[in-house]
């Protein structure tokens, strides 16, 4: 299946309520982002460790298991982190209200 990178990312970015999207590589360097640079760097740096820790916790409990999406629901919005294949996709969304 041919995956159109641009198209897919655009789909996610323009979803209803999405504030911003960040794609981070294995070293934590943001590849692509819709937010400004300082915010991107901050999110990438902080969430990378959190996602890694969450993933290791899940795998510690059950080695067959793996983390699919880490969702942090905060007062103002929701942050969703999906690790896969050494990359990290971070999406910030306004929940429905």
């Amino acid at each position: 299946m041919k995956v159109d990178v641009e198209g897919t990312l655009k789909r996610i970015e323009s979803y209803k309520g999405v504030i911003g999207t960040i794609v981070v590589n294995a070293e934590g360097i943001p590849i692509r982002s819709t937010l400004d640079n300082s915010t991107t760097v901050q999110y990438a740096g902080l969430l990378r460790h959190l996602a890694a820790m969450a993933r290791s916790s899940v795998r510690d409990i059950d080695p067959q298991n793996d983390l699919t999406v880490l969702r942090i629901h905060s007062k103002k919005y929701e942050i969703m982190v999906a690790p896969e294949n050494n990359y990290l996709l971070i999406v910030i969304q306004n929940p429905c209200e």
Partner: protein
Amino acid sequence: MSPKKGKRSGSSKMKSKKSQSPTPQGKTGHPEDIFPLTLTSATQNLFGCQIDEDVTAQSPYKLLKKDDIMQDIKTRAAVSDFSPAKQIVLDYPEEEILLVFDSEFTFGQSFYLVLSPEAKNRILKLPETETPEVLENEVDTARKPKQWVSLGSEKEIEEESVKEREPLVFTFSRKRRFFGLPVSFSDNITPISQGFPSYEDNRRFIPAMLTDCGTQAVPKVQSSTAQTNWLGKRNNSTHYEPRDLSEEEKEVILQSDSMKEFLRGVTPRMLHALQQEEIFNLFTDDLKDLGADVEDDNEPDLSKGLELFKTFTDPSKGKKISSVNWHPSINGVIAVALKMQREEESDSEEDLSLTDPKFIAFYSFADLSKPQLLLECPADVVVFEFCPSNPNIIVGGCANGQVALWDISAEVTFLTQPGSEKVPANPFDLRKEQTPEVLYSAASEIESSHKAAVTDVQWLPPTFEVTRTGLPVENTSKLCVQVITCSPDCTIMFWDVRLPKQAGLSLFQRPDQNTPMTRYIVPKTFKHLDRTWKPLFKVSFQKMDGSGVYAPLKLSFEPYPGNAEAGSWSAEDFLDYSQLRIPSAKELKTLEDVNTKIFIGTEEGEVVYTDWKLEKDEFGLVHCPKPLFSFSTHDFMVYAVQRSPFFKDIVLTVGTWNFAIWKEGVMEGPLHVSKFSVENCTAGCWSLTRPAVFFIGKDDGSMEVWDLLENTNGPSQVHPGIISGTIICIKPWIVSSKQHFLAVTNDHRVVRILEISKSLRTPTSNESSRMEEHFEWETKYVKEFDRRKKVWAKEKEEQELKKETKPAKPVLTPAEQEELDKKEYGEFLKLEESILKGLGLWPKPDHSDKKN
């Protein structure tokens, strides 16, 4: 002096010797025939008059032979006890001489001799009567007590016994000059101030031969610190920045296969999560959504609506209240404008009440019986407003078309401390108890003012000001300096309270003696405007159908928020208004985004939406713009036009029999028009805290509370009889979060202050957003309705057109008509026959009700 008698068994020898010890030798008075003497024990033995043996207290008498005594005297000579009485004894006539034992020492000695025989007889007669006692004594003496043998105990007893000592004799001599003066002895009661010094205890303490001693093992190691020089390098601070990839690298990565793999895997999950998040809010709090209040529910909401808080009446007679306003900064102060009560409108300009002063009265909650401050006006004030940037400035529109300004900065203390000592400002003012009065600082020129009563006056916000052509420009002074007034003389005027540049010269020429000695001190704030105040410019609006001009009664403009800093005003920044000058129009920056359109409610019930900027038409002449729309929703006078404090494009207009809600920008008509009500609606205002609530006051003194979210057809609450008479004015005010007031005045000088209950002042959840939605729907509905109306109109037109093009039907004569009818009837009968045959009911029965 007398020894104890109980010790008689004791040493009688010693005793008698003691009794012989030197006694005060003053022989004071003893009868002549008594001669006291003492006898030693030896003598007593000889004569047989031993004390307690022969002679006792009971039988103290002993007759002694004279010869014996003489014998004793001769033998013992000087030693004899009787030697002092030798002569007496010799002289004694009789043979026997009486010796009496004087146990009580009445005459100083233990015995006495009775010298005369007569006395002897006399005394001896007595024992004859006391013979029974003598007998007893004899019985007693029969038993002789044992002789006491001294064993040494008397020494101990003597040591222990308490004896009276001989008196201490002090000999002292006085100073010579005090000789002969009376002596006064007193006790010395001074406390002993001598301390008791400690002394060395010469008793030796027990020396300790053994003591307990503890030992502790101490390591040989001891820690100490020393400062050394650090020669190595140490990181104090690090400056870093995040790593970033270059654009090309990013592009490469984005196009790589791994990225594609990644997205392939992640995208469905992420979309799923996003969708979940979007449709369902996991964390809704149902209770909260139901609208449970966060604030304490300890106070039960007893009244559902409005409670009477205070009511007061203006004491002046013959006046009506025309307008009421709350003081914006001082709590609890309300200002009331009074105008003359006229039975009928008099056409002439001069009326009887010209000489009476016209007032705006300030009342304070602390003392509602009389006004705290009175503002004198040139004529009856119909409306007035406090300046938003300086609550001490008040502008008022009068019934004769003039506009007046007041400055109460000097008297504002009367409002903040009501009831305080009112010192008359002028020493010549003899009326000490009167409330202070302030004369108006400035009144506009009569010729250039309105020709009819000013019915609405409003301050322009400090964020923008208006030039002579109506262009909104930036307001550099950040204060409210301009006023809009409107009047049923079909004009709207803009006034500026600052001095116009050109008038600077003419001020100096005006001499100051013109001002007479007034009773009041007039503040000089607006002296530059007095009597020369002209409006900045005038606008009047032609009717849309060209049949005249509108006569505006009330207006409402959009408040321009401007910059955030413009709102902050502090007392120190306040410039003297007399120093401000109207700047030239070219210097100021034009503000493009100010909404210069206003809603006007007219005398005839139209609501007009128009622009005040003067336009230039094709000839270059400046003229008033045409109104954008006008609707005659109300049939008579419009009493109130007010913008909602929550939505700046929603306007409420209250006409005589109904009210309407308008949205700016919706040209098709009002969003909502109420039903016609029986009583006149005379006043209306929005609630300050709830976006959906507004109050309508009626002619009969009742008030309706409308809640648009609850019920749009009718009022949600009706309070009949709030006040007697017609409600003239309703003004809401917030004192604190728990106290919201509504001031309601009628035309009989009564002001009632109502407290708004909790249910009416706390907005329901999301009320603002719900109201917005409601208005959106209304807008859509109105637009839709309008569109449909147009469509229907078009259709109707088309239909009419069609009708006209169709050939006209031939007109039948009555006979032909009858023939036609008969034919139709015949056809009908046949039809009926065929149907009934089909049903098997033919021939048709006679009863008509049995047919199918």
